[in-house]
């Protein structure tokens, strides 16, 4: 079983709306005509992975899954019956959600604009000789891949792993700390690694998951950054503070492994 104090607890500041927009963008579907069944299934799949990985997901994600299920079921009803249930005329059950997503999308665009301004200002120095620095507080880099991008990469890697003989899997021993060392050592040589390459040649799901958790742990410790150039681009792993020694104690996530099978 997973130990209570083992938490990757990479603060997931992204919420359910981010996940939905992520899926909408990934599938290139029309935000005003969301294929609710397909998106709901994908949403649940990601949510399941996040739960299994024991990320600090908020209740908001659960609430949204209920909302999605409700919309999905109401979409199945003929229009007349829908009207009976709610007093409103003919309203598409998706409408409230769409409105919320569109509204949020506007602010995401506004945030993109701020991001551009921030990058521009990095090259500007005033007489105070300081670009208004935000202090040393280690923050997640702007180019950082979102947690959904990472999970998507994990999903792909798991998909690539051959269905194996279960006996064989459990015979092998993989640990997160082992993979932490593996990543650090590899980054000393390569400086920059494609996350897909990190999973390359792995034959068991356990190994993939341990590697993935090691990536999350290192991100959380601000030792590495997962950066992505452009939406849905390749995710690269880079070292952040190479001079710091690694001293991480792990409780191995046995439960995670079990749940994935």
């Amino acid at each position, binding site marked *: 079983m997973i130990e209570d104090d083992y938490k990757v607890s990479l*603060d997931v*500041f*992204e*919420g*359910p*709306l*981010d996940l939905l927009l992520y899926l909408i963008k990934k599938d290139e579907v029309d935000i005003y005509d969301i294929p609710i069944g397909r998106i709901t299934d994908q949403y649940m799949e990601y949510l399941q992975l996040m739960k299994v990985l024991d990320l600090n997901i*908020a209740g*908001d994600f659960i609430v*949204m899954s209920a909302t999605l299920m409700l919309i999905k079921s109401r979409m199945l009803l003929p229009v007349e019956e829908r009207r009976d249930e709610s007093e409103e005329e003919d309203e598409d059950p998706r409408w409230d959600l769409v409105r*919320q997503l569109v*509204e*949020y999308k*506007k*602010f*995401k665009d*506004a*945030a*993109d*604009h*701020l*991001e551009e*301004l*921030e*990058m*521009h*200002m*990095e*090259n*500007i*120095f*005033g*007489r*105070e*000789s300081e*670009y*208004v*620095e*935000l*202090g*040393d*507080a*280690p*923050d*997640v*880099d*702007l180019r*950082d891949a*979102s947690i959904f991008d990472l999970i998507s990469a994990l999903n792909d890697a798991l998909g690539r792993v051959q269905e194996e003989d279960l006996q064989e899997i459990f015979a092998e021993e993989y640990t997160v700390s082992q993979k932490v060392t593996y990543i650090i050592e590899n980054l000393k040589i390569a400086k920059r690694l494609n996350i897909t390459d990190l999973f390359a040649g792995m034959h068991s799901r356990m190994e993939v998951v341990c590697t993935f958790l090691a990536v999350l742990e290192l991100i959380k410790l601000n030792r590495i950054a997962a950066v992505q150039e452009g939406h849905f681009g390749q995710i690269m792993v880079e070292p952040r503070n190479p001079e710091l020694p690694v001293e991480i104690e792990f409780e191995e996530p046995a439960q995670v492994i079990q749940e994935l099978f």
Partner: protein
Amino acid sequence: MSESTIDVLPELKQIVGAMLFAAKEPLSIKRIRKAMIETGSGFGGPYEQYAKVTESQIEGALELFQEDLLKAKVGLDVALVGGAYRLQNDAVCGPFVRALLEKNQTVRLSKPALETLAIVAYRQPCLRSEIEEVRGVSVDAILRKLMDMQLVRVVRRSELPGRPWLFGTTQRFLQHFGINSIDDLPGSQELKRASTQNEKKVATATFPEMEKELEIQ
């Protein structure tokens, strides 16, 4: 390299340039005028003319200064940031300046932080619950961090039950992003809304811990 000679009276354009250069922070027209008046009345004689300078004359001098600076292509520029003028390096020279100052890695804001900041910027003064309604996720930790970074501040308490805090952006926010005023942000009319309308609409969320901390300060 020139000799110390005060036999030629400087033009307004030169003076604003020298002031912007020597100042450690952006200068407002008022502040420039104040220094000119002080010098003018302090020195007297031919300097007295500077004591009569108007704000629009200074504005004109600043425009001329920027024009001539850009024409000369000397790697410098003037920007209006948060209502004040700032002398700064030309953005194209940024990479060289960074190398000189050994600024390799800059702390950049994460996407969620930028989004939260955008909501605060457009909707200010706004409640934490309003931000959470838009983002669909708790913003407690991010808001706290943005306040630590002095990009967001508490504007005042709202009149809603529980008197929750209303948040807004700071002068530092404007400086960090090089913005003169919130109205300069694109789509500000669309994304803004009458605050009264929403203050009523939005459910009151208590924010006890943070409020307690704030009161101590």
